């Protein structure tokens, strides 16, 4: 094992400036991850040519793969930097910001499009007041099992980064939002606005923009059955088409 690790990082100074590649060589530490290596670079921001440069910036929070904020493209594949272990990665390690969102600086991107998508599909339970509504309905065990898995989504962006149909030019909502629509359509109170969610998903950028490449389910760090969610929303939408046709 070599005693240094080389990082090839795609950097960008401002949202408008053009990106450039910079190499960094840091001492190898067993069991380190991409975040701890970025911290090492930050303590001594010197590129491989020995030039003093601005430290590489990134976003991170939980450091245990539940918040999703450190999502970036590592060796060409999207992953959380905190759970990307150096010992398991091919060297040199390339780091890039996600390509589907506008870059703010270096490895930080603006993922607000994902939040907007959640708002569009109304991924919440509607409550029309602050008064006590009493206890909710009991969920069956079988629904709980599905819903729990879906609720693990951290809106990290892996699914849409790997999706060939999700580009910066279109307005596809993406697998995460479709899956959340499914989650709230199966909730006792959430399903009150199922029709509104399906209406949104039947517009441009909705379910019909899925191209069945199925990369989303492959890269999801939480192993959420995203293609099942897409098929389930597809089924709900098919039902709605039939109901609309035969409705007076």
């Amino acid at each position, binding site marked *: 094992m070599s005693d240094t690790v080389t990082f090839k990082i795609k950097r960008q100074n401002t949202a408008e400036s053009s990106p450039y590649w910079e190499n960094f060589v840091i001492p190898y530490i067993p069991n380190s991850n991409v975040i701890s290596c970025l911290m090492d670079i930050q303590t001594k921001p010197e590129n491989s040519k020995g030039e003093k440069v601005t430290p590489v910036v990134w976003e991170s929070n939980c450091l245990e793969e539940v918040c999703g904020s450190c999502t970036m493209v590592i060796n060409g594949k999207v992953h959380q930097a905190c759970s990307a272990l150096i010992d398991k990665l091919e060297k040199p390690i390339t780091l890039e910001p996600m390509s589907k969102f506008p870059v703010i600086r270096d490895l930080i991107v603006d993922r607000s499009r994902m939040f907007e998508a959640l708002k569009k599909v109304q991924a919440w339970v509607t409550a029309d007041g602050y008064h006590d509504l009493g206890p909710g309905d009991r969920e069956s065990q079988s629904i709980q099992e599905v819903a729990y898995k879906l609720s693990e989504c951290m809106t990290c962006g892996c699914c849409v980064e790997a999706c060939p149909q999700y580009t910066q030019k279109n307005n596809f909502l993406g697998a995460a939002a479709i899956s959340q629509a499914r989650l709230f359509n199966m909730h006792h109170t959430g399903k009150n606005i199922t029709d509104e969610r399906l209406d949104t998903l*039947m517009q441009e950028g909705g379910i019909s923009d899925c191209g069945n490449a199925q990369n989303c389910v492959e890269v999801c760090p939480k192993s959420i059955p995203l293609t099942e969610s897409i*098929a389930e929303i597809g089924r709900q939408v098919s039902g709605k088409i039939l109901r609309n046709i035969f409705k007076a």
Partner: protein
Amino acid sequence: MHSHFLLRRIHSLTGVVPVGLFLVYHLYLQLYLHYGAEIYNNEVNSFYDSPLATWALVIVVYIPLLFHSLLGVLLVFENKIQPSYTYFSHLLYWLQRISGIGVLLFIIAHVWNAKLGPWIAGTWGTHFEHLSSGFADPETGMLTKTVYLLGVLGAVFHFANGLNTFCMTWGIALTPTSQKRVRSFSILVFIILTASAFYALAAIW
């Protein structure tokens, strides 16, 4: 309902119901190549010259096919190439698009060669002779054979894989297990149709 959504759903439906089923019937007809010129010509003519055939072909095949092709061409160019994600389904996703374009070009050549050409030349009706002489041509025969082989292979793949994605799009196959079953079924369809089509072509090879 939004037209964007509706057009894509119709695209998915037309690929399977009229166009896909026509492909199956079309490949079935070709098996008569093994019965010689007279029977083959009779079978093909009785289909194309039946009173309903022209209108049925326009409504059930030509219009849906044209719609499916035009929208399909537009859909091919609305995505991002991401070669680092080397998953089987992702490969199928691209093969579906590449085969779609290839099959469209093949169909244009095929309609010209097997339908419009003979019509203009006044040799319509002698399908067997037309096909076999095209295949036997010492100069262009090899090219024709290759184009037919690739065209048929592409069409069968596009249909079989389309069945697979159709079941996901319309929510017929929900769980990963049922999606696996549908994929196995579509692979079976691909094998059977390819075998049938190649066996038919072998009659005049």
